[in-house]
Structure formats: C-alpha cells, structure tokens
C-alpha cells in the first residue's frame, strides 16, 4: 500500500511506527508533546504514547543531549529533537564531546543508539540564528553519522534505519522540504541503508553530487539541460558522514566530470572533503576540474537576502555547462 505524503508526515509516520514496534524508543525535546513540535513532526505522538514516551523538556539543549546519553546507558533508544539546528551550539558538548565518543571510550562495550533530529537549512525566512547549514561541523566529528534526506520516501526509510542503528545519528531535516511536495510513500515500514548514496538520476556526461534540498535544485538543472542534450547524473548522498565514495567514484569514472553542490557556505558543509577525496581517488578519470557550487562564506544571511545568497538551479546549470565545456 502506498500513500501520498509530504516529508514532515513521512517523518511523523516513521517515528510513530517505530515507537509502536519498540517501546524503548522515546521522543523528547522542546514543544514536541501536546504541540507536536513547531513543525508538527511529532504530531499525535503525545496523545498516542503519553507523557513518559513523548515529553516536553525544559528549554535547555545541552541537557536534552545529556538526557539522551543517560537514557542510552539505561537501554533506551532516544530520539531527541533540537528545535532548530541553529541552536546546536548549545548541545555541542553532549553530541560531539560526549555521545560521539562514548563507544570508543568504552572499547566498543557500550552503544549509544541516539538520534538527534533537527530542522535545518535556509529559504523559509526564519528569524535569525534558526536557519543554517551546520552539517559540516557534525560530519567532522568521528563517532557520529549524519543523515540528510532529500524527499519523503527517503526520510521515512532513513529515519527508521537511524532509530534502529546502534550508533548516534544526527538526522537533519531541511525546512524547505517539509511541505514542499508529496510523493508516494509505502505505508509499511522499510529501511534505507545508512552510509549509502542514491543515484537519483542516471546520466553520462556530468556527475552532480548533492544532498538535502540541493538535490531538488540539481534535478531541476538536470532536466533543463536534457533539453540541450546534456546527460546529467545526480547523486544524492543521503548520508554525509560517512560518505559513500564507492558510488561517487563509479559515477565519476563513467562521466569524467563532477560538480559538487551544497547549500552551506564554501568553507562549511562536506564539499571540501568530498572534492578532496575524489581528487585523490579519481584524478585520472577527470576531464575537467571539479566544480563547487555553494553559498558564499558569510554568516547565514538576513531573511530578505536569503534568495540571493542560496545556491539555485540556475547556479548549478551554469556550473554543469562550464564543466562540460572545459
């Protein structure tokens, strides 16, 4: 059975079905209870599972992370929400300093099956310090997995896999994708393997590697360029840590050209890491320098400047053409 779901509903369904199946799964965070979260990602869960399993925390992110740590030690599978990822700095020690390191510190004898869910990314004109693309900070931390879905189908399968995974996962949900479109999503549970990229569109001339909302923009660019007889392959990373280099290398060996696209600033995100790795692994297959589409290296901008600042399908189209014509 399938249904038409937007991404936020797919996320709610993933949480609901896994909570129903496994009583060790707990959801907590700021306003996630009766209110169902500021984006309604936990809509209905409080009513169905009660105060103990779906709880509103006091407004202190560090302790939300500490609570996830302690609950893991007690055998639970915490799914904590950080209301906006711009607030992540308040919980950095818990996530990057503590949770990410605990399995290593204990020689592999203690798992930390924590999921930290959080809305991120720009383009929805939030107040300042809400929107940002801070996935690069997380991706640089050994011990974490960082997952970013680009559509409702992936969101459900990846979140289900993330909750079942015994390692800590930072699960970033692009705010612009929450309600931007619906697609067919199976009603039953399914998993999408973490750490594996998806070839979102096959092509033979240029490889575009992207993640999150930028996958949508890359697909738009690819469709546009098809009219000009340019065949663009689009790889959706799905997981930005660890990265699936096998899939990227196979594509680059086929096309010989690569464009990396991220919404984050040029000095942020995971673009620099991926480009560096591909340069080392596939230099002899490359017929042109790798192109890098990103936001500029400013602080995340004022709401009225966002559309000028964010990379777009037009920027990607231009980069693909330049790479193809090199």
């Amino acid at each position: 059975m399938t249904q038409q779901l937007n991404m936020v509903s797919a996320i709610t369904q993933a949480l609901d079905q896994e909570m129903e199946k496994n009583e060790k799964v707990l959801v907590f965070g700021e306003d996630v209870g009766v209110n169902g979260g500021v984006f309604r990602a936990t809509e209905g869960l409080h009513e169905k599972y009660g105060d103990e399993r779906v709880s509103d925390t006091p407004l202190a992110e560090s302790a939300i992370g500490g609570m996830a740590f302690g609950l893991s030690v007690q055998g639970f599978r915490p799914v904590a929400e950080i209301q906006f990822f711009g607030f992540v700095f308040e919980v950095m020690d818990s996530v990057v300093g503590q949770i990410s390191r605990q399995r290593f510190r204990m020689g592999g004898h203690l798992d930390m099956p924590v999921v930290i869910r959080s809305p991120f990314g720009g383009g929805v004109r939030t107040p300042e310090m809400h929107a940002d693309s801070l996935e690069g900070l997380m991706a640089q931390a050994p011990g974490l997995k960082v997952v970013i879905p680009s559509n409702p189908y992936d969101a459900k399968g990846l979140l289900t896999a993330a909750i079942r995974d015994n390692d800590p996962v930072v699960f970033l949900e692009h705010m612009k994708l929450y309600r931007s479109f619906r697609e067919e999503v199976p009603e039953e549970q399914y998993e999408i393997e973490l750490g594996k990229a998806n070839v979102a569109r096959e092509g033979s001339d240029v490889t575009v590697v992207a993640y999150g909302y930028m996958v949508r923009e890359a697909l738009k660019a690819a469709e546009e360029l098809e009219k000009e007889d340019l065949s663009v392959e689009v790889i959706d990373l799905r997981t930005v840590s660890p990265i699936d280099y096998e899939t990227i290398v196979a594509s680059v060996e086929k096309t010989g050209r690569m464009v990396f696209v991220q919404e984050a600033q040029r000095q942020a995100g995971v673009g620099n890491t991926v480009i560096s790795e591909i340069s080392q692994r596939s230099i002899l297959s490359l017929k042109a320098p790798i192109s890098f589409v990103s936001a500029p290296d400013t602080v995340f901008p004022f709401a009225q400047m966002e559309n000028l600042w964010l990379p777009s399908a037009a920027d990607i189209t231009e980069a693909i053409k330049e790479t193809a014509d090199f």
Partner: protein
Amino acid sequence: MAKKPLDFDKLVKSYGELFSMVQILDKDGKIVNKSLVPELSDEELVELMERMVFSRVLHDRSMALSRQGRLGFYAPTAGQEASQIASHYALEKQDWIYPGYRDIPQLIMHGLPIYKAFLWSRGHVEGNHYDDDLHVIPPQIIIGAQYIQAMGNAVGQKLAGKENEITITYTGDGGSSQGDVYEGINFASRYKAPVVFVIQNNGYAISTPREKQTAAETLAQKGVAAGIPSIQVDGMDPLAVYTVTKAARDWAVAGNGPVLIETITNRFGPHSTSGDDPTRYRSQESFDYWEQRDPLIRFRNYLTEKELWTEEHEEELIEKVQEEVLAAAKEADQVEKMSVSDSLKWMYSNPGQNIQEQIEKYEAKESK
C-alpha cells in the same frame, strides 16, 4: 529615616542562612548532633573507617606511583575521604555512579578493580571495560557534563520501573559554575528523577578559590531555583555525609525526585600530579586549618573512644592495602597493548566505508 520597602541586602543574606552545615562529629570526633547519628552497626562503622583508610593509602601510593612515572593523570584525593567514601557507603550495588575525574575511590568501592583504575589513569581502554553488574560510567573530564548525563540515567531508571535504584553524580566547587550543572538539576526536578547530585566543595578549582566561583554564600542554595531539597554537610565528617546521603537516597527512591548535597571538604594536595603546586595559591594556614579537620583523625578518635579501633589494626590494614595497590600496579603492567586497527572497531557498531578502509590499511601496517 525613610522606610526601606525593598531590602535587597536582607534578601540576599537570607538565602545563605537557610543552609547551615550539617555536622554530627566535630573535628575531634565528639558527637555534636545526637539526633542525626546514623544507625550503623559496629561492624559497619569499622568497615567505613577501613574504606577511608584504604582510600588514603591508595592516594599515598598513587602519588608515589605518579612520581615514579607509573601512573598517567592522577587527581589526589587525600582530605576528601569522608565526602567520597561515606557518600558512597550510603549507596546500594545496583545504584549508578557518574563520577568526576577525582572520584576514583567511589568507583573502586563500587567494584572497579584497582588495576583498571590505574589503566584509566595511564590511558588504556581496558580501564573503561566494566563487568555488566558494575553500574558506573568512566570518569567525566568536562566538569559539569556528568550532571546532565546522570539526570538522563535516572530518568531512564524511573521509566524502566527500577524501584530501589538511584543515580549519584559528583562535581566540585569549580564544576558547580558550569551551565550543565544548572540544567541537570533543573531537568531532574522536572522529571522527578531519582538522582543525588553532590558538589564536593574542596575549596579550590585548580587554583581558583571557591570565593571566585560565585558570590552566593553557599553552593547548596543553587538547588533552590530548581525546587529541590538542597543541603550543606560537613564533608570532613563521615557520619554526617553518610546520614545526609542516605536520607537523599531514601527521598529519591521514594519517588520524590533529586537532592543536591554540598559537602564542605578540602583537598590536602595539588589539583593533579601534572605539575600543580598548591603553595602558589594557598597559605600554610589554610593547609594547617584543614589538616586539623582530617576526616581520618575525627573518625579514628570516635571509634577508638568506642573501643572499635586500634593503632595496630590500622597499621596492619595500611600494610595490606599497600601490597594490594602494588599488586594492582603490576597487574596493570601485564595488559595487552592497544592497536589502531582495534580502536577503529570501537568507533561504530555498524561502520561506514571510511572506517572499513582504514581498518584494512592499519591491519596491513600492523602485520608487517
């Protein structure tokens, strides 16, 4: 004189006045508060003293081992025996401990073999490899983080319906300034989590004196804003520390939520053996004042008076513990070396391509 409608001065003084230090034994070992004397049998009183002597000997030997280069990081514990050992004595085996880095004696009392404590100090993973029934987490370095983690642990105990089980966590006067300490006690209050928060106020962070942490008259009063019972106790008095911790545990186990305890104690030595010289920031008078309040002196006097303790017994015990500690140091020498390829396997339960590639690379390197 005009009437003072809002007396802020009086208001702020009133907070500290709420927290008079609980004491049962004075510095000479005389009972000063009969109504609070705990119901401990003679055997238990002796056992408590033996554990405190153990801890002092462990401290002395650890200092010596440090000087010989046979330990890594070591945070001295002399002076804090009542605060550490007597608070632990109020616990049950099933309780969980979230310690700070100075709280090694409580871990050993809870069942951590001494050689593993030494391995932790030396920087070997085996130091953190615990038996399943040892309910502890490795010592915390980020001095407030254990408070929020202990809170989460206690929320978990409560959700799992573990009825006679609590979490205890320790920080210091320096740690009490960390945001995580406030967040931890506040969350625990909101969730009514069975956790006992201990602030061991030993007078100094590394060199920063307690007075420079806060203008608040007591550290115990920090619990007031979280709406939880808070209490200050003489941390050089084992009976008072035991009584207060036991009462806090009973309160938490009964489902009432957390308690905050401030123990007024002192560290007789340096912050750590990594080059700290306490004479740079402490006067001789300060050392003298606190050494007169040594928990071992007062408890020894108390037990000798009760004819439960003799000098000979203490000497025999010291000798036995010294041997035990020496044997543990030797045992720690025997542990297998760590390898990078193994450490890569500790990272994830379900690793990605990067880890798998690097395991292969390091295994090849190591097999050469």
